[in-house]
């Protein structure tokens, strides 16, 4: 089945496949961990039992997703070496320490307090338990900080020199960590994680409201989620625009591919639809708004926008993939804004929980955050091609000396195992989500010092 592909393509496909699967889980757990911290904090402050119920409802879902994130993440930390050994040798001195810091400041923190968060409810006091939840939430965000710094450095390298064996050597760690695209990418990704989870929570709330609109736990969930949608979705559009302008400055070829601009021109059009054709360097079947791209990218309708014609062909990213992934991401983003505004309107009218069309739309939007996250990563990663370190090291020159049969074998194994294992996990998560949040039972917090070892207190038999 792989006759027409070379070892390099298979290695790229394997990385793309494993990381696309992986990013789903951190995107989810970053958001849910923060949501759990908010829920537990609100419970301790208000003593309203609905927050406690929601906490226990979502912590079970979190546990499954976190486990999947951990095991798919370990794959990433070894795959740089197995399949991208030249890249690891050359870039290891720069990105390695950042990932080292990720392990030391984030992974241990999350893992260390996860046990207390999941199993320690009846062993430590409620304040300590809240502390553990906070540490897990903070850990997920710190992890995002470091790994996005690594990725951003590969997009917009800074603070480096080369040594005599061809390795990148750091001249300024601050410039490396806070490289030009990092703040934008970090903000964009964290907001994406929070939005993704807001829409998952909103969909679960809406699902149960469609069955019973008086369900108090579902109402609380839906209301919280729609506040997030109303506030964060427009904020994400704003941050995304800033991120785009930053990309325009440092990676203009990527933006040209995103926009389907083959030619450099003033009053550049915005393509709403079209099929970019690299052979003819034209967008077929184009539906476009003249001048709008100049307004968006330069904030001036007459400004000239750089096209792919400014770059040699061998430096072009795959245009159609980037162009379409970008449209999918932006399209979903706009739907999220729509959902936020619509819910705001319904709330003003005092009918947030009564409009079944809004509830149905919210259920539909449930998985859309994940689609947008993956589409967004395809935009930025495929848009970086043909470079693995932008402008400095080509992807084609970075791979391990592993032959085609070897990579094909591991790729097939990853595909089979991931669909099997993470398919089962998704099934268990969906089953948890189908359970009625109003029926969650609450065991007591410990009032005395702990005596017994681990008890799995949070599981019901499904």
């Amino acid at each position, binding site marked *: 089945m792989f006759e027409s592909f070379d070892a390099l393509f298979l290695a790229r496909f394997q990385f793309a496949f494993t990381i696309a699967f992986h990013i789903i889980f951190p995107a989810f757990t970053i958001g849910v961990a923060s949501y759990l911290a908010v829920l537990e904090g609100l419970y301790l402050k208000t003593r309203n039992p609905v927050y406690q119920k929601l906490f226990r409802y979502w912590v079970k879902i979190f546990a499954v997703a976190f486990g999947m994130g951990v095991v798919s993440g*370990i794959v990433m930390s070894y795959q740089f070496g*197995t399949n991208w050994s030249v890249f690891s040798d050359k870039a*290891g001195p720069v990105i390695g320490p950042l990932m080292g810091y990720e392990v030391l400041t984030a992974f241990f923190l999350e893992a260390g307090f996860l046990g207390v968060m999941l*199993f320690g409810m009846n062993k430590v006091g409620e304040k300590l338990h809240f502390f553990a939840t906070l540490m897990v939430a903070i850990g997920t965000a710190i992890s995002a900080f470091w790994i996005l710094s690594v990725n951003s450095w590969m997009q917009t390298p800074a603070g480096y020199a080369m040594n005599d064996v061809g390795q990148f050597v750091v001249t300024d760690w601050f410039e490396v960590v806070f490289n030009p695209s990092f703040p934008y990418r970090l903000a964009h990704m964290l907001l994406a994680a929070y939005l993704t989870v807001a829409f998952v929570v909103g969909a679960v709330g809406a699902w149960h409201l469609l069955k019973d609109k008086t369900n108090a736990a579902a109402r609380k969930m839906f209301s919280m989620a729609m506040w997030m949608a109303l506030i964060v979705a427009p904020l994400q559009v704003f941050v995304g625009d800033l991120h785009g302008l930053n990309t325009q400055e440092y990676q203009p070829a990527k933006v040209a591919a995103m926009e389907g601009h083959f030619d450099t021109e003033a009053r550049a059009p915005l393509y709403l639809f079209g099929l970019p054709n690299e052979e003819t360097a034209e967008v077929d079947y184009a539906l476009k708004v003249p001048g709008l791209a100049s307004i968006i990218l330069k904030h001036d309708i007459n400004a000239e926008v750089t096209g792919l014609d400014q770059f040699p062909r061998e430096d072009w990213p795959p245009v159609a993939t980037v162009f379409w992934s970008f449209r999918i991401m932006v399209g979903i983003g706009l739907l999220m804004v729509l959902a936020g505004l619509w819910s705001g309107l319904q709330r003003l009218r005092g009918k947030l929980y009564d409009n079944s069309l809004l509830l149905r739309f919210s259920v539909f939007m449930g998985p859309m955050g994940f689609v947008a996250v993956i589409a967004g990563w395809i935009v930025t990663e495929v848009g970086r091609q043909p470079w693995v370190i932008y402008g400095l090291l080509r992807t084609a020159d970075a791979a391990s000396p592993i032959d085609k049969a070897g990579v094909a074998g591991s790729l097939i194994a990853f595909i089979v195992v991931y669909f099997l294992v993470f398919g089962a996990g998704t099934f268990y998560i969906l089953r948890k989500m189908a359970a009625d949040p109003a029926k969650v039972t609450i065991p007591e917090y410990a009032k005395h010092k*702990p005596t017994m070892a681990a008890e799995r207190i949070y599981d019901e038999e499904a």
Partner: protein
Amino acid sequence: MDYALIWAILISVAVFAYVALDGFDLGIALLFPWFKKEEDRDVMMNTVAPVWDGNETWLVLGGGGLLAVFPLAYSVLMPALYMPVIAMLLGLIFRGVAFEYRFKTKRAKGVWDLSFIIGSLIAALSQGIMLGAMLQGIEVTDRAYSGGWFDWLTPFSFFCGIAVVIGYMMLGATWLVMKTKGDLQRQSYRAGWYSAILLVACIAFVSLYLPYVDSYIAERWFTYPASVGLWVLPVLLVVITLGLLRSLQKRQEGRPYLWGLGLFLLSFAGFAVSIFPYLVPRSITLWQAAAPENSLKFLLVGAVVLLPIIFAYTGYTYWVFRGKVDPNSGYHD
């Protein structure tokens, strides 16, 4: 200061912490075939459920740390050990998800038991095979692996794989002795006894076989008088073996696990002595593999500050979940 050497020691600490901690997690799974009762398996899993994730993080530190401070070694070892590394990662996936999935279903509980056992077996076996493959030596040309696709697989490396499987079973059994009571504990004492004897036999075999076939290692261990100091290791092996067996026989709950760790520490020291100063045996020394000094220093600052904190809160988690796991408390909600 010799930062490369400091880092070689720190990476060794991370790898040993991984083996000492995830070793008993994996070992518990490897013992499952001899513990057939569902309630026993529930308890066994719950002795490690709150800590396994942190234990596995040491493996991430080992990998990430190697990339950071010895990028050349990382970029040679990973392709050289491609198949066992991938197999280990896949095994760890099946093992890791079982902790959660197993309690999410009645119907498929057996499936996730199997996933737990086989995933752990593949992971443990792969880790042992990698150790063996490193002891055999790894071919390098121009900063890249240049050996064959199956160089890692020999009768010797496979034997090392089996030895690690047995070693983890011993750690698992001695951990269970500490964390359980009643029949489950009695059975764990027995499992600890048999696996300890088998493990010592494996260690003895590897220790005698390696110098026999490998003159470099023979010279390292048997050059008079330079090697005399090293002979303390075989002497200690005898002492610790006797200590372990005695503590199992006398039913000293907390001690067998510590003695067992001693066996691992000794084997680890033996491994280090046999490959030093190479990180990629006979091809790349730790100084050749080291990243530029400012990378070593930058991460060292973090390690010195953060590792003690990590040890502290990891210790706290173990303290919260100290004591025996009660089989009667469990799955209510």
